[in-house]
């Protein structure tokens, strides 16, 4: 009987400690990313469609961000830019601009990318209506956001790896409910 109680108590403690660890990691990442510095790094992107018989789309480029500014310059001249509440999307020859004060869909997308890259995890969880957990995985912090409920839009899961050394983003996989996913990898 005593053994059983001890095991249960240990399990509860472990759970509590994990929860505390998760909150601490999230707080650490947010704090490390709260400065106003400009970050600029190379990245690669892989988009996998829901229909696995279709080909993946791969691109790479340089991203740059600072508060309220986010830019992804692709080597194929594509562009993804968020500046002054305007989202500019250049895919091939076509360029589209969206007013983020009016367009809810694009605002959601832009917030997701910005919050994830800039380590604003609490805001990311609210934006995605997701449960958030964080844990240590070797030299990285693994942050997982799982949607609280199944929905026809948005992401079922977002998994982000941050470097332990500087809490900067290392990689991110965004899984949509449809089965499509996008993977970002940052090269240091």
């Amino acid at each position, binding site marked *: 009987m005593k053994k059983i109680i001890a095991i249960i108590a240990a399990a509860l403690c472990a759970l509590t400690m994990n929860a505390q660890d998760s909150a601490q990691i999230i707080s650490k990442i947010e704090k490390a990313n709260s400065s106003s510095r400009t970050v600029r790094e190379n990245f690669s992107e892989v988009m996998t*469609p*829901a*229909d696995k018989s*279709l080909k993946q789309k791969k691109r790479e480029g340089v991203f740059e961000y600072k508060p309220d500014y986010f830019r992804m310059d692709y080597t194929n001249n594509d562009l993804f830019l968020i500046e002054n509440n305007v989202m500019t999307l250049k895919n091939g020859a076509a360029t589209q601009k*969206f*007013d983020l004060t*009016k*367009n*809810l*869909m*694009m605002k*959601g997308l832009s917030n997701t990318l910005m919050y994830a890259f800039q380590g604003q995890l609490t805001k990311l969880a609210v934006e995605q209506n997701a449960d958030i957990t964080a844990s240590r995985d070797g030299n990285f912090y693994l942050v997982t956001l799982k949607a609280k*409920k*199944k*929905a*026809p*839009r948005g992401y079922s899961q977002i998994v982000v790896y941050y470097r332990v050394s500087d809490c900067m983003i290392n990689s991110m996989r965004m899984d949509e*409910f*449809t*089965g*499509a996913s996008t993977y970002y990898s940052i090269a240091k």
Partner: protein
Amino acid sequence: MTRLFISLYRYFKAHKAVFYCILVVSALVFGYFATKIRFEENIAALLPKTEKSSDCDIAFGDIRVKDKIFLQILSRSGNMTPEEIGASMDEFLEMLVSRDEKGLIANTFNRIDTDDIMNIVYYGMGALPNHIDESYYPVIDSLLTEETFDDIASGNMKSKLTDLGGYTLVDGHIFSSDSTVALAFITPAFSSYDTWRGTYLEGLMTRCVKEYEAAHPDCEILFHGVLIEGVFNSRQIKKDIYWTVGISLLLICFIICFCFKSKSTLLHIVLPIAYGTIFALAIMYWVKGVMSFMAIGIGALIMGAALSYCLHVLTHHKFVDDVETVIKEQTRPVCLGCLTTVGAFSGLLFTTSDLLKDFGLFGTLMLLGTTFFVLAFLPQFFTEGPAEKNEKAFRVINKINSYPLDRNKPVVILMAVISLITIIESRNVQFDNDLNNIGYKEPVFVRSENIYNEKVNGNWYCQYYAAHASDLDSAIIYNRALNAKLDSLKGIGAIHSYSGVDGILIPFEEQQRNIDAWKEFWTPERVSRTFNLLKKEAAEYDWSSTGFDIPETFKLMAESDYEPQSLYDAGVVPEALLCNFVENNEDGWMVFTGVLLDRSKLYELNDEICATPHVIVLDPFYYTGDMVEIAHRDFNIVLLISSIFVFLVLLLSFRSLAVAIIAFLPMGLSWYIVQGIMYIFGIQFNLVNIMISTFIFGIGVDYSIFVMDGLISNARYKTHRLLICHKAAIFFSGVTLLIVTGSLIFATHPAIYSVGISTIIGMTSSILITYALQPMLFRLLLKSDYLRKKALRIK
């Protein structure tokens, strides 16, 4: 009273400094407070609430949807394409907003952008099941066939998203359904009752329209709305009053100067009226602080009554050199006239209408102030000795006045017959309680309204209703009940159609039922069958090129979890569009529905629709109809009380029942004659021109008092002097008043015009009765020895 004014005259004459001191200081004090009074130009705001409007306790001033301005652009030649007209609308709005330095425009809405459509799609993906009523599923089930999907995929069942009732979309721009008129809706940042800001915004819009049309001659730009109507109305009232009363006053000045041959006469006329006016305004400021601008306008008639007292005293001085004699002979009839006229006006104080009360109080105070000045101050400006006058003019006037109208049998018989006929017909006169009919509409405004009604409403009258509650969900529920009522009315053909947000604003409880129905409908088997159909179409029509995986998206939508959402809070619908359907103000939440109906059935439909709980008509005049009826009923009672009061005063003053009856005759008869003539000529009374009836009373009894005074003096002292003086003054008074009131028939504003017509009829009949019937009846009275002794107070 005579002794008092004579004493005052002697005292002021001996103490000029005191006289001027009292005069100047009192004028300055009254003048200062008179400038502080605020004027209200909105007639609906001056009518009290009735039981009908009190039920919902809504302040119409707070409802913003009624303030919307409708802007339209169309091609004059018809050669501009819809795209060009749409682009013109964008340019014009940009110009207008850029020049709005005072921030009077809250927002404009003229197009549905890609952003708006994406938002609707985005919202729809997360809330579609919330909006599908469970009764639709059998229909949906019947459509889940290969043939239906083939038709959709091949474009045969193209979405009718661009057809939006009376509107359509061209290149994102909102147009009338025939794509000839581009439409925009401007929401002001203030209430339509704020006529100062409204005037400024209308001015800005008019200037922008002129400039844009000059640069783009083929563009015709029109606008209308409640706010614009108020501005035009107010502007026309002021314009009409300035021009009609202004010009007529110039004419009167000329006549006075010509006949009295003295420029100082004008000052002697203007000073008492000005003093009376500032006295009245000062007291109004102390008592109320605000008064109706329309009451001031109609108050021009009161100035006419006040003018007649000035003219009586001034004219008398032309015949009598001694100032004390003038005071002695004028005090009694002037005071009596003032008292009875005040009695007629002050009856309005007992009505429930602020507009009538303002008019009554202003009239009463002005007459008191003017009368006091005429008897206490004016004589100080007279010089002793013969007064200069145009002898020739006065001879002509005396000749006119001395014509024995009362001895001309055909004239008397004709007057009697006309009186009888009009008195009989007087009970048929109509009272128009629709305040919309006494408002003014500028022609360009009417054109804009007509185009909108034709192109958008299909020439049906559009009436808006609001379901209201303290929270949005309850307002949506009440809106459901309203739409159910409208549905049944449409079913029996009582209304043409209605449009609202019943389909998109759904109560939370109903959304949950819809979500449950969705879950129940999309069984795994049905999902799988539909998914396979979509996959087949996706492959056949290459849907992957759209970037959307439609079959997977469908599957996701069918299997996802949903919960009730507030479309209002989702931020999906642009604010400039949403405010046409939902409003939140101090009174709570309102959900609006527009109904197209036959205007001739408006009032009975309003009564029936508003029987639905928590539903109101978005038309304050619907509620003022009751108020106007009440004002009309009040007025009839007040008229009776005033008549009794005036008669009692006449009786006490003349101390002879027969004389009092004869003196009362012009007042009593002329009112019925006016009503009869108005009925015969198809002129209706309304809230505005019914006020002038008190004026007709006042003038009628004034003239009859002076003539009776003259007739009694004739009979007692065997001299015609007093009657000649009084009749000369009546002539000047009558001519000046007929000129002033007659000028009002040249007014464009319907209310001002109606006042002019009814006043001319009333005054003419008053004068004719005073000149013809009154002397004839007095002559008959004198034939009886008993009555003669009573009338002349011979013992």
